[in-house]
C-alpha cells in the first residue's frame, strides 16, 4: 500500500477492482464505513465503486442511500460494474480515455481547468524547485519541476526514452542528459499526448464489448473519478495545511486491489494501469488516495521485504550476477556512483569500500554481506579490501528458479528433456504448495520424484503427506503458533508491529527461530558452510566455527535450551528465548546503517549496523529507522504537542491514542520507509518530510537526510526511462499504440474469445501477453506457459473459471481447515454458478458439481497423484463442488452467465477436506512476477450423479 489501512478514513472514493475486502480484509470495512457514513464529522461521504466479475459482498455494500441535498455526499456515485475475468486493463484504459475526452469536451469546467493547470504546472504547488546531481558531482536545484507526474516530459519516438538536453541548474551548473520538458501537454511529443493516443483505442463501445459491461458503466466511473480527485478538491492550489483533509470539499480517490488485480498473465500491467490513473488524477501522495495492495498473508509484506524470492535478497536488492564485481553490483543500487559513468558524466565519485562514501541500499548490502558471510569486524578501504571481497564472493551469483518451473525441474524426465539441472531436494517451510500451486498434476509429479522433502508446519498438511516415490524420504518438523514466538511483522500498510511471546511453544513444537537455528547448526556441523569458512583464511575469522560466527551472535550457543537464552534490550528489560533472539536479529536488520552512538543498559549488546536499508535509516539523528536508540525525541514526524518514541525498538511502540495531524498514528509501530505513512506525499502532509514522486531525479529526495553521506546521487539512475517488457502477440500497431510503455489489454491464456467458441475472436484483435525482449516488437506467442502445459479452447471448455476466497478459510487451508469451528462454518467447497449455466447443465442448488479443465477435474485423482490407499490414505476430498446457483435476474446474481467461481482453500488433508481448485487452474504466469493466472481459465461443468 502506498497509504495504509487507517488512511482509508480520509478517502472520498473507494475504487475496488480485484479485491473483496468485505470478506478477505474485513478490518478495512470499518474504515470504509467511517468515510462513507462520515463518522469523523467532516460533512462528506465517500463513494464505493466495485469493478469485479463477481457481485461480491463488497459490491453488495453499495447504494446505502445518500443525501441529495449535500453536494459533498459522494455516495451518489456508488456503482457495481460487472466485467469479464481478465479485462481489468481494458476497463481502466476505457475510463482513462473517457476522462481525457471529457476534459477536452468540457474546457470551462472547474475540474478541467484544474486538471490542465495541474499537468501544465500553472497551478500553485504543481511545480517546485528540486535538487539534482550535477555533472561535477555536486547537487543544485532546478526550478519548475512538475510536482508529481511526468505528463510534460517529451518522449523520443525512436528509442522510447525521454528526449534529453544539456541543462543548467539554477546555480548555473551543467546537468547532462536532462529530460526535456514540453511547454504544455499539447506538445505532441509529451507523455500526456502519448497516453491519450494509446488509450484512444479503448472507446466506450470497444471496452463494453471486451468487458461485458455497458458504456454507461464507463461514464459513471469516469464521473466518480473526476468528482473525487485533486481537480475537484477544495484544497486544489492551496498551501499544505493539516486542516485540508478535514474539509467537506476535500476529495481523494484510493484504489484497493488484491489478487484479482495481479493473478493474470498481464497482472503487472494491470497494476500499472492503476498507477497511471492515480497519477493522472493527482491522487498519489494524498491522504485518502494512493494505490493500496491488500496483501494476502499477515506477513507477506515482510517476507517480500526479506527477499525470499528467486530474484531478490533482503531489501529488494537483486542477486549479484555471475561475473559481477562488488563495485559493479553496488553501483546499481540506490546510493552513490562508485564506478565511472558513461560519457559525458564519467567521473568516479566515491569508493564502494569506504563506508562513508556509500549510502543506504549500498550500505545495507555492505553490512549484510558482512553479517551473512562473516562479521562486521571485517572492514575495508580503497587500498585494502581483500577480506571484504572474500565475503562478497560467498553470495550465490545469479537468480534461482521461479516457483512453477521449480516443480518441473523436480521431474527427472522434464529436467532431462529441457536440459535443466534436476532439483532433488526441497525444503518447504510454512507453505503448502500441494494445494496452492497451479496445475497440481505437474506440481505433485515433481514432489513425488524428490529424493528428500522437508516440511515445517503446525499441521500435517497436504505437502507433507503428498505422494512420494518409494525411495523418497520426507521429514516433518513441528512449528508453533503466532502467540508462542516473539518478533516483528509488517502489515500491508508497511507498519511494523511487534508480537509478544505469550507462552513457550506448546508441547514439542518449536519457534521458527529455534528450528532455523537448529537447521543452521546442523548445516554448519555437517560441513555445508565449508565454502564460507574457506574464504576466511588469512582474515580475522580464520579457523573459527561457522555457526559460532554467523549464528552465535543471535544468542543461542547451539547447545542450551533455546527458550532459556536470555539478555537485555537497550532499555534494560530482560528478554527470554525467542524474545531475545528476535531482538538481536531485529537490531541487525533495523539499526541505522551507520550504527548508533548510545551504549544502552548494563549487559546490552550493541554495535549493530543495519542490513535492511528500507527498515533502517542513514544516520543517527532525527530521521529514524525501525531501531534507533539515539532517536528517542519528538521526531519523524514531529508531533504537536510532542510525543517521543521512548524506545529503541519502534515496532514495539503502541501509542494508539494520538492520531497526529493527518490521522496516521505516527507513533503506533513504525512504517518503512522512514516512518512514512503515506508514500510520495511531497510535503503536502503536515509534519512529514517531503517525498517525491516519479520523474527523473526525484527519487533522490525520498531518502535525503542530514549528515555527510546521505545526500546521494541516485538521480542519475532515474535519468533512464524504464518500462516493463510485456508485449502483446497481436494488435501491435493497431489496437496497441504504445504497448509496454502504457498498459495494454490482452486476453488471458485461456479465453472464450479465442475464436473457437461462440464469441468473437478478440485474441486476434488484442493478442495475449508475452515476455518480450525488445520494446514495441511483437512477442513470441505463448511464452508465459510451458509448451507441455495443457491448454483448452472455448470449443471444449466454454465457461470461464475464476478462483476466490471466503472469510472463514485462509489460503492453502492448514490454519483454518484444522479448526473445528471454521470447518463447521464452511465445511465444503462450493461453486458459484449463474442460473443460466446451471440450468443448461441440469444442476440445482446444492447439487455436487464436477468441474473439468484441460488440466484436470474434481472427482478423480488426477494421474493418481494423491495417496488414496494405505496408511496415509487421504480423505474423501474429491467429491466435487457444492452448487450455489444464482436466482432472479442477472443484477441479483453473484456471477454472470459464462463465469464459474470456486474458492481455493480446500485440499485432501485436515479436518475439513474438499476439492482442490489447483487441480484445475492454469499454470501460465505473469510476464514480470510469475504470478499464475489463477483468475481466468476455461472449464466446463457437469452434475455429479450420486
Amino acid at each position, binding site marked *: 500500500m502506498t497509504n495504509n489501512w487507517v488512511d482509508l478514513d480520509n478517502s472520498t472514493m473507494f475504487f475496488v477492482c480485484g479485491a473483496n475486502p468485505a*470478506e478477505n480484509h*474485513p*478490518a*478495512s470495512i470499518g474504515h470504509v464505513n467511517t468515510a462513507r457514513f462520515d463518522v469523523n464529522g467532516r460533512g462528506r461521504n465517500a463513494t464505493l465503486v466495485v469493478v469485479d466479475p463477481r457481485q461480491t459482498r463488497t459490491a453488495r*455494500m453499495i447504494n446505502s442511500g445518500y443525501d441529495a441535498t449535500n453536494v459533498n455526499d459522494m455516495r451518489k456515485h456508488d456503482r457495481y460494474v460487472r466485467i469479464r475475468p481478465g479485462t481489468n486493463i481494458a476497463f481502466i484504459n476505457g475510463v482513462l480515455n473517457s476522462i481525457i475526452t471529457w476534459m477536452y469536451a468540457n474546457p470551462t469546467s472547474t475540474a478541467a481547468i484544474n486538471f490542465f493547470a495541474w499537468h501544465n504546472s500553472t497551478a500553485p504547488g504543481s511545480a517546485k524547485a528540486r535538487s539534482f546531481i550535477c555533472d561535477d558531482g555536486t547537487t543544485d536545484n532546478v526550478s519548475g519541476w512538475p510536482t508529481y507526474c511526468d505528463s510534460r516530459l517529451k518522449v523520443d519516438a525512436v528509442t522510447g526514452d525521454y528526449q534529453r538536453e544539456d541543462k543548467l541548474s539554477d546555480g548555473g551548473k551543467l546537468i547532462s542528459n536532462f529530460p526535456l520538458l514540453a511547454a504544455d501537454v499539447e506538445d505532441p511529443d509529451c507523455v500526456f499526448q502519448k497516453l491519450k493516443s494509446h488509450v484512444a483505442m479503448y472507446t466506450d463501445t470497444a471496452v463494453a464489448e471486451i468487458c461485458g459491461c455497458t458504456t454507461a458503466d464507463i461514464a459513471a466511473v469516469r464521473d466518480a473519478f473526476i468528482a473525487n480527485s485533486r481537480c475537484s478538491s477544495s484544497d486544489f492550489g492551496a498551501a499544505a495545511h493539516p486542516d485540508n483533509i478535514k474539509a467537506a470539499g476535500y476529495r481523494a480517490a484510493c484504489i484497493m486491489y488484491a489478487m484479482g488485480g495481479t493473478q493474470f498473465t498481464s497482472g503487472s500491467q494491470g497494476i500499472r494501469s492503476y498507477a497511471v490513473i492515480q497519477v493522472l488524477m493527482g491522487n498519489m501522495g494524498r491522504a485518502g488516495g494512493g494505490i493500496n495492495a*491488500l496483501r494476502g498473508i*499477515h*506477513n507477506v509484506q*515482510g517476507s517480500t521485504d*526479506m527477499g525470499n*524470492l528467486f530474484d531478490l535478497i533482503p531489501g529488494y536488492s537483486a542477486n*549479484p550476477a*555471475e561475473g559481477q564485481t562488488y563495485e559493479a553490483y553496488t553501483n546499481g543500487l540506490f546510493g552513490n556512483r562508485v564506478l565511472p559513468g558513461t560519457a559525458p558524466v564519467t567521473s568516479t565519485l566515491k569508493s564502494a569500500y569506504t563506508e562513508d562514501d556509500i549510502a543506504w541500499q549500498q550500505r545495507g548490502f555492505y553490512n549484510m554481506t558482512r553479517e551473512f558471510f562473516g562479521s562486521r569486524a571485517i572492514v575495508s578501504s580503497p587500498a585494502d579490501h581483500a577480506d571484504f571481497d572474500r565475503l562478497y564472493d*560467498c553470495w550465490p*551469483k*545469479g537468480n*534461482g*528458479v521461479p*516457483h512453477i518451473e521449480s516443480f518441473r525441474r*523436480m521431474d527427472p524426465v522434464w529436467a532431462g528433456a529441457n536440459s535443466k539441472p534436476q*532439483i*532433488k531436494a526441497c525444503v518447504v517451510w510454512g*507453505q503448502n504448495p500441494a494445494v*496452492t500451486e497451479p496445475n497440481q498434476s505437474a506440481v505433485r509429479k515433481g514432489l513425488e520424484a524428490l529424493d*528428500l522433502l522437508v516440511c515445517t508446519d503446525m*499441521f500435517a498438511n497436504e505437502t507433507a503427506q503428498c505422494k512420494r516415490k518409494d525411495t523418497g524420504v520426507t*521429514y516433518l518438523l*513441528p512449528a508453533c*503458533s*503466532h*502467540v508462542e514466538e516473539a*518478533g516483528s*511483522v509488517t502489515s*500491508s500498510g508497511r507498519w511494523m*508491529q511487534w*508480537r*509478544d511471546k505469550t*507462552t513457550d511453544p506448546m*508441547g514439542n*513444537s518449536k519457534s521458527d*527461530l529455534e528450528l*532455523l537455528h537448529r537447521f*543452521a547448526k*546442523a*548445516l554448519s556441523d*555437517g560441513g*555445508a*558452510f565449508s*565454502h*564460507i569458512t574457506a574464504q576466511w583464511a588469512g582474515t580475522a575469522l580464520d579457523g573459527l566455527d*561457522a555457526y559460532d560466527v*554467523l549464528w552465535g551472535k543471535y544468542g543461542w550457543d547451539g547447545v542450551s535450551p533455546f527458550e532459556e537464552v536470555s539478555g537485555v534490550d537497550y532499555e534494560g528489560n530482560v528478554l527470554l528465548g525467542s524474545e531475545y533472539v528476535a531482538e538481536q536479529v531485529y537490531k541487525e536488520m533495523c539499526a541505522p546503517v551507520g550504527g548508533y552512538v548510545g551504549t544502552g543498559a548494563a549487559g546490552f549488546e550493541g554495535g549493530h549496523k543495519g542490513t535492511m536499508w528500507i527498515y533502517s535509516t542513514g544516520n543517527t539523528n532525527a530521521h529514524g529507522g525501525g531501531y534507533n536508540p539515539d532517536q528517542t525525541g519528538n521526531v519523524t514526524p514531529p508531533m504537536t504537542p510532542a510525543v517521543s518514541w521512548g524506545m529503541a525498538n519502534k515496532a514495539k511502540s*503502541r501509542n494508539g491514542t494520538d*492520531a497526529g495531524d493527518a490521522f496516521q498514528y505516527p507513533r503506533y509501530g513504525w512504517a518503512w520507509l522512514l516512518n512514512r505513512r503515506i508514500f510520495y506525499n511531497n510535503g503536502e502532509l503536515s509534519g512529514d518530510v517531503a517525498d517525491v514522486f516519479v520523474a527523473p531525479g526525484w527519487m533522490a529526495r525520498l531518502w535525503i537526510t542530514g549528515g555527510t553521506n546521505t545526500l546521494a546521487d541516485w538521480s542519475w539512475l532515474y535519468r533512464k526511462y524504464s518500462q516493463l517488457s510485456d508485449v502483446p502477440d497481436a494488435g501491435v500497431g493497431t489496437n496497441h499504440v504504445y504497448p509496454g510503455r502504457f498498459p495494454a489489454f490482452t486476453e488471458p491464456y485461456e479465453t472464450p474469445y479465442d475464436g473457437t467458441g461462440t464469441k468473437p475472436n478478440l485474441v486476434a484483435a488484442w493478442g495475449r501477453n508475452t515476455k518480450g525482449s525488445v520494446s514495441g516488437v511483437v512477442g513470441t506467442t505463448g511464452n508465459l506457459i510451458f509448451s507441455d502445459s495443457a491448454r483448452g479452447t472455448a470449443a471444449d471448455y466454454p465457461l470461464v473459471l475464476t478462483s476466490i476466497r471466503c472469510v472463514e478459510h485462509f*489460503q492453502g487451508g492448514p490454519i483454518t481447515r*484444522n479448526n473445528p469451528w*471454521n470447518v463447521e*462454518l464452511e465445511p465444503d467447497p462450493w461453486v458459484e454458478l449463474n442460473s443460466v449455466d446451471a440450468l443448461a447443465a441440469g444442476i440445482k442448488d446444492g447439487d455436487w458439481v464436477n468441474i473439468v479443465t484441460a488440466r484436470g477435474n474434481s472427482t478423480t485423482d488426477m494421474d493418481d497423484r494423491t495417496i488414496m490407499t494405505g*496408511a*496415509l490414505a487421504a480423505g474423501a476430498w474429491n467429491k466435487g463442488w457444492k452448487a450455489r446457483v444464482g436466482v432472479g435476474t442477472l443484477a441479483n446474481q453473484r456471477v454472470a452467465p459464462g463465469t464459474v467461481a470456486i474458492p481455493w482453500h480446500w485440499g485432501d488433508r485436515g479436518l475439513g477436506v474438499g476439492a482442490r481448485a489447483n487441480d484445475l487452474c492454469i499454470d501460465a504466469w505473469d510476464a514480470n512476477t510469475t504470478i499464475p493466472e489463477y483468475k481466468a481459465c476455461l472449464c466446463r461443468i457437469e452434475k455429479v450423479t450420486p
Partner: protein
Amino acid sequence: MATHDKETEGKFELSRRDFLKAGAAAAVVGATGADMVFTASRAIAADVAATYTTTCPYCSAQCGQKVDVDASGNVLDIYGDSNNPTSRGGLCSKGAGSYQLVNNVRRLGVPEHTAAVDGFDFTGTAWKRIGNGAWSAIALDTAMTEIVAGDGGNHAGLKAIRDSLGAVTAGSTAASNAKTVMFFGSSHMNNEPNYLYRKVIAEFGTSLVEHQARI
C-alpha cells in the same frame, strides 16, 4: 459437530456458542458491510495471569490481538485489541477463531494430539516417512542431522545433493549457486525468521527460493 466441542472440553472456557456468535458477527460484515465488533475477553478474570499483545495470523491488515494466559502459560482467550488503530478491537471469523488455532489438538507436537485425529502419533519432536509408508517419530536433532548428512541408506543429505553436480564454491561463477535444492519460505513467519531463512539459504549456497508472494 458435537465432537468438535469435546476436543476442547475440560481445558478451555471458550464455548462454541461464543465463537459462533463472533463468527456470525463477522459474517454480517460480509453481508451488509458492517464494522467488525469488539468482543471482550471470555476468559475468567481470576484465571488471567498475564495479557499480551500480538497481531492476527491471517490477513495482512494485521489486526491487533490481546492474549490472556494463565499462570501455567495456557492461552485462555485471544480477542481484539481495541487500542489498535487498524482494527479498533474487531476480529473477523478467522481472527476470532485463532484461539482455536493455538489450542488445537491436531497440531504437531502437542501432547493433546491423539492418534485418532490423523491416524498417526504426532506427539513427538519430528517425523519421518519413507516412500508412502507410515510416519514414524524421530528425535528433532536426529532429523536435522539426517536432513543435512543423509540417513545412511535411504537418501543423501542436503549437502551431498547440493554438491552432486559439483561442490559449491565461493566466487563469481555459477559454481557459487547450487541448482539441485529448492527452498520455499513463508509469509507465515515473522520478519526475523524470514530474514534468517533467506540468510541460511544464501549461506547454503543457492538462490533457489520462493514463497507465497508469488502466488
